[in-house]
């Protein structure tokens, strides 16, 4: 650890060049750094070079018509405090509030959360439910991927060597909600978390579940049970039961499989009802 080098490139090109200065695993990207500190002290193969993104011009929130674009290095607390967020993307607002604590969110970023791709991420389920697009930039230019194709598995993403997450794009405001269960409200990992959203443009629901390895997933079998923007109680219960039955869920030290299936069912019901009952929900 004493041989660690810290660099703060002043441009995107310089940052991309820095990523290519070492073998994979030797170079670590620092966005907010709240997860990186564990990597520096815990791992057997700890990084030797830290590339801080703090001088890059990516601490941005941009509302352009229906589209929200969030710069990857914007602290989550700044996004949470954006005056439009809670009304236009209530589920995203609630999910951000579930991340760590205020102190942690002053540094933690959307880009860092996505790039880390933890199975415990509280943001990936809601990004799935909102059909978020991940914008990347790298040695061969810029590209973007839907979050579903960006997160490949536990701690695995589609980022190519030398690529950085530049921004996350949300195509339209959606009535949405995020519900979770955990032991401690702050600074804890959700045993199960559920994001629900209704897409006005597609006329259909998105249900995504987090807290189960390897990664947050959408549950199309359950989405298909919700037949309109104002589903009946029977439809809501049917969707929740189906999700609880279909998902691949295991027991680990945080919760048993049985308890998690129970949580999936309960939290899907609560999240969908919250969307329907919200001011802009269900038309």
């Amino acid at each position, binding site marked *: 650890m004493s041989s660690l080098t810290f660099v703060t490139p002043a441009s995107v090109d310089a940052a991309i060049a820095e990523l290519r200065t070492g073998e994979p695993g030797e170079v670590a990207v620092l966005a907010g750094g709240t997860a990186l*500190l*564990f990597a520096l002290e815990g791992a057997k193969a700890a990084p030797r070079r830290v590339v801080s993104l703090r001088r890059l011009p990516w601490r941005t929130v941009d509302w352009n018509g229906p589209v929200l674009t969030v710069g990857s290095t914007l602290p989550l607390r700044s996004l949470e*405090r954006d005056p439009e967020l809670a009304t236009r993307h209530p589920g995203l607002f609630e999910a951000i509030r579930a991340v760590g*604590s205020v102190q942690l969110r002053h540094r933690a970023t959307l880009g860092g959360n996505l790039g880390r791709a933890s199975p415990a991420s509280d943001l990936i389920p809601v990004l799935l439910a909102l059909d978020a697009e991940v914008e990347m930039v790298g040695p061969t230019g810029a590209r973007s991927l839907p979050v579903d194709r960006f997160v490949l598995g536990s701690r695995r993403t589609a980022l190519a060597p030398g690529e950085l997450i530049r921004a996350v794009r949300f195509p339209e405001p959606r009535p949405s909600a995020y519900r979770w269960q955990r032991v401690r409200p*702050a*600074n804890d990992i959700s045993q199960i978390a559920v994001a629900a959203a209704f897409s006005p443009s597609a006329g259909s629901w998105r249900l995504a579940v987090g807290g189960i390895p390897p990664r947050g997933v959408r549950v199309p079998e359950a989405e298909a049970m919700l037949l309109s923007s104002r589903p009946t109680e029977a439809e809501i219960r049917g969707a929740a039961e189906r999700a609880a039955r279909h998902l691949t869920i295991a027991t680990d030290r945080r919760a048993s499989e049985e308890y998690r299936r129970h949580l999936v069912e309960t939290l899907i019901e609560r999240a969908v009802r919250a969307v329907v009952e919200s001011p802009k929900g269900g038309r």
Partner: protein
Amino acid sequence: MTPPPLLLTVNGRPRPLEGVPASERLIDTIRWRLGLKGTKDGCRTGDCGACTVLVDGVSTLSCLTLTHEVEGSSLSTIEGMAEDPVGRAVQEAFDRAGALQCGYCTPGFVVALVGLLRERGRAASVDELLADLGGNLCRCTGYLSIARAVALLQKEAP
């Protein structure tokens, strides 16, 4: 390979620091390099909030922050709170409410609350402030008196 010197402003005074390794955490810089032991070292994993300081006015976990990452920033620790009107008000409220027992978590709670009041001011309700203090743990479980201190503050905001 000597790392370059870096500059921090600590409780209003410029503090140039020589030879800070790239791997040094802000909490260790504060406690061992600057000798300011008021900031407490609780868990070193971001769970307890005892190490909370203000970096450019916003509450930050100094245990999860590399010192080099905040180069050039202005830092406020518990030692600087008496010179700040909000800081003084929070400390007086903790005093009046008896909001400490062993005291280990107190600097973190005070600094976190000062940060919240600077962000939200009088607009924040007591319940919102308490929810936003969720990242701070009190292992004496003295939460009721801490809640009383917050209530005192919002009735008599600075």
